[in-house]
């Protein structure tokens, strides 16, 4: 799995930075430790919100979902928010099957997510 991270500063009254973590490839138990670490780093570095771009993820299993749940909890514990975006069809199906699509904030694109977080 490939993981990228960048920071964006949306135009808003607050000067808070948003971390955008991009994931691509297969997201299963083997990838969880590095993704978990990346999400924690993203929250710690920006002290703020995290957008996870799942556009390149073509498979996710229960361990991957659990990792995102943990990421959201970690964000919340730090007073921040986490938004997922760019879900591909196979990944979206898993979110719908587990109804986690109702628990996560999910948006279409990184731009939409960062705009929502900056508002």
């Amino acid at each position, binding site marked *: 799995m490939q993981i990228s991270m960048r920071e964006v500063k949306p135009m808003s009254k607050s000067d808070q930075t948003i971390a955008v973590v991009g994931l691509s490839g297969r997201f299963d138990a083997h990838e969880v430790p590095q993704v978990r670490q990346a999400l924690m780093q993203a929250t710690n570095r920006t002290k703020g919100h995290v957008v996870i771009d799942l556009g390149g993820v073509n498979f996710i299993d229960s361990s991957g*979902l659990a990792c995102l*749940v*943990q990421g959201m909890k970690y964000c919340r514990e730090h007073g921040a928010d986490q938004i997922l975006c760019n879900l591909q069809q196979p990944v979206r199906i898993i979110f719908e*099957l*587990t*109804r986690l699509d109702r628990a996560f904030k999910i948006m279409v694109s990184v731009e939409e997510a960062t705009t929502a977080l900056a508002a």
Partner: protein
Amino acid sequence: MPTPKLRLAIITTHPPGKGSLNEYAYHFVRFLRQKEEVGEVILLPDALPQGQTYYLEPRQGHAPVRVIPCWAFGAKDNALRIRAAVQQTDPDAVLFNIQFATFGNRKVAATLGLTAPYLIKRAGYPTIVLLHNIMETINLRSAGFAGNAFVESVMRFFGTQVTRLLLKADMVAVTIPKYVEILESKYKATNVLLAPHGAFEDTPQPSFELPPGPIKILAFGKFGTYKKVETLIEAFKLLQDDSRPPLELVIAGTDSPNAPGYLESVRRRYADVPNIRYTGYVAEQDVPRIFGEAAVVVFPYTSTTGSSGVLHQAGDYGKAAVLPYIGDLAEVIAEEGYSGEFFEPGNPHSLATAIARVIDDPERRRALGQQNWRASRGLPIAEVVDWYLLHFETLIARRQTGTARRLPAT
């Protein structure tokens, strides 16, 4: 301002109660009370026999557990009793950890009990039902719930109505994707979700070697309905010959609540078969030893009524499994990465052959044990609990955005 912590009620069986799903509840509650966002767990189990009490040790940093035994297996007024207990304790949300025979072995009691989630939802509490089996995949006749085709069709009709009632809960969680598919297609349900069963123990890699002494063949569970040991004992007789090291058959567990007296009748019937040990009820602290000593775990099922907690335990302890290739069990095996030797249900020769393939081949035994251990590592129940908390938070938040704290059921 800090977020108020959740007060969650759970309707379930729980050790030392011996009802089905007690073990699952034990582990679920164990991890639930360790979660930061949980302020109190209100355990609403069935009443214990006289002289027994529930005891959950208070632990530093863990949420307190209040135990209110409020229903009785087989009673017809369980739903009302449960509703009264929920209203009295007024939790933020309610979880039912149930299957179709949780509330009784008679049709009326079992059915009336299953109306409880609907009543709780009607009373205005966010409600999730964790349903471990569904009527559509139970072979009612071989599971011992229906004696003939007419009774079976009547039961299926009522089962359908009860399922409709259960689906009135805010959410219904099941552990097998096929169940989601069935409930969505047959009932047009939009509130069913898949939640993994979860691995009970966060154990280190077990030893795949055997202790000295006889080779132990283990059957673990609650016996008498669809888990019957006669075929296993017949197979065990076939396996005990001079060509093998000494064997021991360990039948660990109790009668199913739906089949009182079953194991005693088996014990009498097979009194002449040597090297069989009936352990009776296995206390939680003895479970690791019982599994650890076994060479193979056998599933002498004639049918299944849901995913198997025992299979997950066999995986936790790195044990090879011998399984009937039927129903849900096959589904779990295929979908969760478990493996084993398979036998034709009810056929002692087939079962003996399957067991022999494991115990006569240490390499095969170890390979199966390792595969099952890896499969059981899938997702610890501690993380599954987080999913439920997330769903509860979503439900509660959804309600709080409404005008009233509690909304009437739809």
